[in-house]
């Protein structure tokens, strides 16, 4: 049986180059970068090298990069830092959108219980775009942070981040973007974006898990979530995960070096899959048709439950995902699809396929065929589908 991994928004396979880049740091250069001896010096030099390379990939200064345990921590830290600085100056209002990752939404919810006022902007129905005019209209004297994700993890919609960044900068309001799904997949220049904070995670671009980074523009407040040692210039206590950081740096460079080549293949494959799935009756593409990540395909099939769809595709050797998996592994209609204006019962039947540069045209054709058959089969036994078709 074939095995086709189409869940790259959840996580990606470590690239062989990134794996190679990690190996010397497990037992060769294993020192603690904070140590004074030669072992420590070597590790510290490697850490600095990784920081410079990642900064270069983002158009940032190395001092503006703080390594974290991943995207969620970077999101939390950016919001925490801006919120605490804001509160110290009597500013306790934050603007965000309804389709942010839970690492942002849940953190904001916790700030609400501490007296912060949070404006959650709606998105454009269907496409999921945040309108810059809505952001502008939501800004207040006491706004201490705007946080809007670069690209959505479920529907792949790419937001007008440069526009939002510019209008925040003009009003001197700190701007954070959760770019976890975008870094390594689209070119990013933090200066052009006017971003003050930007989060990324290594495992979304063929780097290792358990490592990420927060870009924080020089002069912006940055506070540590963890108290302890003075690692990361006091911005993140805890011994640095050097092998993972080296792997992430290598993976990011590789992804960006291959970007043109990858896009030339991946975008047509994405569109080929979208075209095939559009042929299914009562199927709808979620998200924006063109302003979307090169790897993202997201559909709803009326009368089909996401859970059954996923299990049958798994039985065909295809890894996909649906809605947002909650911690228990069960599927709830995702807050993203509901924010697009989809009714509950339709949001239940969503299917997300996310490509990688390892996917071929044959994989896509096999997948499209399998989905056609599975949807047909599930509809044949669905009372909901029976009702829908009877209504015609």
């Amino acid at each position, binding site marked *: 049986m074939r095995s086709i991994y189409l869940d790259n928004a959840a996580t990606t396979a470590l690239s062989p180059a990134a794996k190679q880049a990690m190996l010397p740091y497990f037992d060769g250069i294993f020192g603690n970068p904070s140590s004074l001896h030669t072992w420590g010096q070597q590790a510290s030099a490697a850490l600095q090298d990784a920081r410079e390379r990642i900064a270069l990939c983002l158009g940032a200064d190395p001092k503006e990069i703080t390594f974290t345990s991943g995207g969620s921590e970077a999101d939390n830290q950016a919001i925490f830092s801006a919120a605490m600085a804001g509160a110290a100056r009597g500013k306790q209002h934050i603007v965000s959108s309804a389709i942010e990752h839970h690492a942002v939404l849940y953190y904001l919810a916790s700030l609400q219980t501490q007296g912060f006022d949070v404006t959650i902007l709606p998105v454009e129905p269907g496409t999921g775009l945040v309108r810059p005019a809505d952001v502008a209209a939501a800004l207040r004297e006491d706004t201490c942070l705007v946080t809007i994700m670069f690209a959505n993890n479920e529907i792949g919609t790419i937001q007008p981040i440069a526009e939002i960044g510019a209008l925040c900068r003009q009003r001197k309001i700190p701007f954070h973007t959760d770019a976890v799904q975008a870094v390594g997949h689209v070119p990013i220049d933090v200066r052009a974006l006017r971003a003050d904070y930007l989060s990324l995670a290594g495992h979304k671009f063929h780097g290792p898990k358990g490592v990420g980074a927060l870009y924080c523009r020089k002069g912006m407040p940055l506070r540590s979530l963890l108290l302890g040692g003075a690692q990361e210039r006091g911005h993140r206590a805890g011994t640095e995960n050097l092998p993972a950081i080296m792997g992430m740096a290598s993976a990011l460079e590789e992804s960006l070096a291959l970007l043109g080549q990858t896009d030339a293949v991946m975008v047509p494959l994405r569109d080929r899959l979208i075209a095939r799935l559009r042929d299914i009756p009562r199927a709808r593409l979620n998200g924006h048709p063109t302003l979307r990540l090169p790897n993202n395909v997201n559909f709803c099939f009326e009368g089909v439950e996401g859970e059954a769809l996923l299990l049958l595709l798994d039985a065909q050797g295809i890894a996909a995902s649906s809605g947002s998996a909650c911690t*228990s592994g069960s599927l709830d209609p995702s807050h993203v699809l509901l924010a697009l204006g989809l009714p509950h019962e339709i949001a239940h039947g969503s299917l997300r396929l996310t490509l990688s540069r390892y996917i071929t045209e044959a994989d896509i054709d096999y997948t499209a065929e399998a989905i056609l058959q599975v949807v047909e089969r599930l509809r044949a036994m669905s009372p909901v589908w029976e009702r829908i078709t009877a209504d015609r």
Partner: protein
Amino acid sequence: MPFHSADPSRRVLVAMSGGVDSSVAAALLAAEGCDCAGVTLKLFRDGEDNAGGRAAPPRERSCCSLSDTEDARAVAHRLGIPFYVFNFTERFERQVMDRFAAGYLAGETPNPCIDCNRFIKFSALLERASALDYGLISTGHYVRAEFDEGGGRWLLRKGLDTDKDQSYVLYAMTQEQLARTRFPLGELTKPQVREIAAAHGFWNARKRDSQDICFVPGGDYGAFLERWTGRALPPGDFLTPDGCVLGRHKGTARYTLGQRKGLGLALPRPGYVCAICPAENTVTVGDEPLLFSRELEARDINLIACARLERPVRCRAKVRYRQAEQPAEAEQTGPDTLRLRFDQPQRAITPGQAVVLYDGDTVIGGGTIGSA
């Protein structure tokens, strides 16, 4: 299109709660060589609100909480079988929680576990199993399902461990559901099950059995109803059987027939709830003998041992889970109704609860006790 090469009748979806019983059921089926998968059902929300995105992080709750799911997952991994979580929250809310609330508001004392078995485990889960080419489902109930060649019907019989027997909560099973369900614990006693669990190293093997209704942890039904319906339960009068006002109650739905404690009344002698009238918003309190009656009408009946009761039959019956069966005579009065007359008066025959009829250890059928 065949999705699996295996014979569907050897493919079993095991409902796993994380507790010892369903864990052992899965272990026994896997040992038998069945192509098993474990499933935990997510039945109600953990307090998150997806609508506005201002969601709070999931919270721990009782029966299908994250930690129970993790227990079930750990057992499945140990057995080397796939494990899934199915989200049936919408169906559960509609077919179990809404019905539960409606029953209480109508003055009855519903049994949501029976509705959950009827509408979720043996309906929604079976449908899902079919979609995934699983011919059978399995649960850790202490009952036996057997096909009776002579009568040409599937029979539901008590578990051999009569102490743990759960046939009462399964009386609503249809012939098709019985044909497609495996109960691996039916021949075992609880100590045997614990032994098997320990032999498999299931670390939950000594966990106590759950008692609460899963979506009302702590058992405060009144608070649940107010939250679920969004309306305060209106206070009203406690009455004597001849209509004198004894005091104020806190909402009819907070009381159940036969209740003595927690009424908040100072009475010269013990008083028992002997009638609940939501229409008048009154609760009648009287002496214990008033609670006893010999007859009941059941609605919404399901018969297992036969298609219908052709003539009045002698049987033994019980009107609550923890009760010894009592001799009685049952007579079918319509397609979905029957009348039961006990030989001896019974205490607090409670509308909304189930009455289940037995012939020895075989379930004849049962129904919902109607309001008198």
